[in-house]
């Protein structure tokens, strides 16, 4: 497969086209992905989440600069929400990263959330596998939420950074409400604004409380999430942020926790694929059945209602013991 060779050599055109096919749900793209899979698993995947406008894209722009100075190759998956009305989307994250657009060692891919909570889906994972196989050392994933259900950022990424801004008090609110997002690194961005220290203090308290809870449920080894102050507009604090992420990765490797992450990811990915492939197979099987064709006609002539029709096809075609 010349396409696979090109992707493994890091060809951006080939990689981008593959990601596009996967995002479109093309089954033949999965066959190609199978060949890339053994070449993945080397990248350090970092999630950056936080409310809209806190500065995630600007921070990623700075992080790219820092990682590039260390000669690392960097890929970005930037997720923005799809419009619930039209299904379309404005993907504006890379606007803040355009100075890296012509750096051949940087690959930025915008992705629409397409109705997924937090914007994460199997397509995000698929894209990360392609980028990983292309040889990127670092993959940064930007999302507005940590995600829920099938894919959340904690299972996609090795390290999750949660971005906050001073003065919003959501740290304290979160503690009160008992909804503690679990990040590996907490970032207070826009440190040029007042009330920075109060925010850092609230976050530190929250982390302390989380750790007390964790000590009993998860014994050693323990990583205490640091709080890092940044001003993404000026790039201050971003060197320290990059170092913090890298030391978390070292921590994971030292305690063999990357293997555990990998196992969790693989199980999750397998389950998700199983669901998609099963649906695809059953669906195409049903669509060619006589039962399907006959009810379709009867719906169109109003002889049968769609509910009874769907029940009829399922009951005729699927017999489970």
């Amino acid at each position: 497969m010349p396409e696979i060779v090109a992707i493994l050599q890091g060809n951006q055109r080939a990689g981008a086209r593959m990601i596009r096919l996967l995002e479109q749900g093309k089954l033949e793209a999965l066959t190609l992905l199978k060949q890339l899979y053994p070449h993945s698993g080397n990248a350090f995947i970092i999630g950056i989440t936080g409310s809209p406008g806190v500065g995630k894209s600007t921070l990623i722009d700075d992080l790219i600069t820092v990682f590039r100075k260390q000669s690392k190759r960097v890929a970005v998956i930037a997720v923005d929400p799809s419009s619930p009305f039209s299904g379309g989307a404005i993907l504006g994250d890379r606007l803040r990263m355009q100075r890296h657009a012509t750096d051949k060692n940087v690959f930025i891919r915008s992705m629409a959330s397409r109705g997924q909570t937090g914007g994460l889906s199997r397509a995000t994972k698929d894209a990360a596998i392609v980028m990983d196989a292309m040889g990127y050392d670092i993959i940064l994933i930007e999302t507005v939420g940590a995600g829920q259900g099938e894919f959340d950022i904690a299972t996609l990424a090795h390290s999750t950074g949660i971005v906050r801004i001073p003065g919003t008090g959501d740290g304290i609110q979160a503690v009160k409400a008992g909804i503690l997002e679990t990040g590996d690194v907490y970032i207070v961005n826009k440190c040029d604004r007042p009330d920075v220290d109060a925010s850092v203090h609230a976050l530190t308290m929250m982390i302390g409380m989380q750790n007390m809870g964790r000590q009993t449920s998860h014994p050693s080894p323990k990583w205490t999430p640091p709080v890092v102050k940044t001003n993404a507009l000026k790039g201050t604090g971003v060197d320290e942020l990059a170092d913090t992420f890298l030391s978390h990765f070292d921590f994971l490797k030292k305690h063999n926790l990357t293997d555990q992450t990998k196992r969790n990811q693989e199980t999750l990915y397998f389950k998700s694929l199983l669901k998609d492939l099963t649906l695809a197979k059953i669906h195409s099987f049903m669509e060619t059945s006589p039962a399907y064709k006959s009810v379709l006609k009867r719906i169109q002539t109003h002889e049968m209602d769609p509910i009874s029709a769907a029940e009829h096809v399922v009951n005729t075609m699927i017999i489970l013991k």
Partner: protein
Amino acid sequence: METTNKIRVLIAKPGLDGHDKGAKIVALALRDAGMEVIYSGLHQTLNQIIQTATQEAVDVIGLSIMSGAHLPICKRLITMMKEQGLDDIRLIVGGVIPYQDIPELKEMGVAAVFPGGISFEDIITGMNKLFE
């Protein structure tokens, strides 16, 4: 597995044009027509546009040009697209484009031209037509 073929568009402003109000409004209209629009902002070099279109694997590059330099810009970009193997990406142009320049733009390979004052409806119909 659900397959979704949404049109992916890169909206870019090459050169030194002063503002991007028009481009942003068109981007919103395309989103509302169900397209996924990558917005890359002002002052893009042609090289940035090429690399962005490559990484994002778009179907369409939409340029907004007000400076009057649409002929040389499109000519250069089409050459670069060919060099980079981006022949399958459609180029469309909007902005301040005199009607008498349209035939020349089409001849060099611009897929559609939307001069200022044209309705969103016409832009969307014109774009959907490219993918029929």
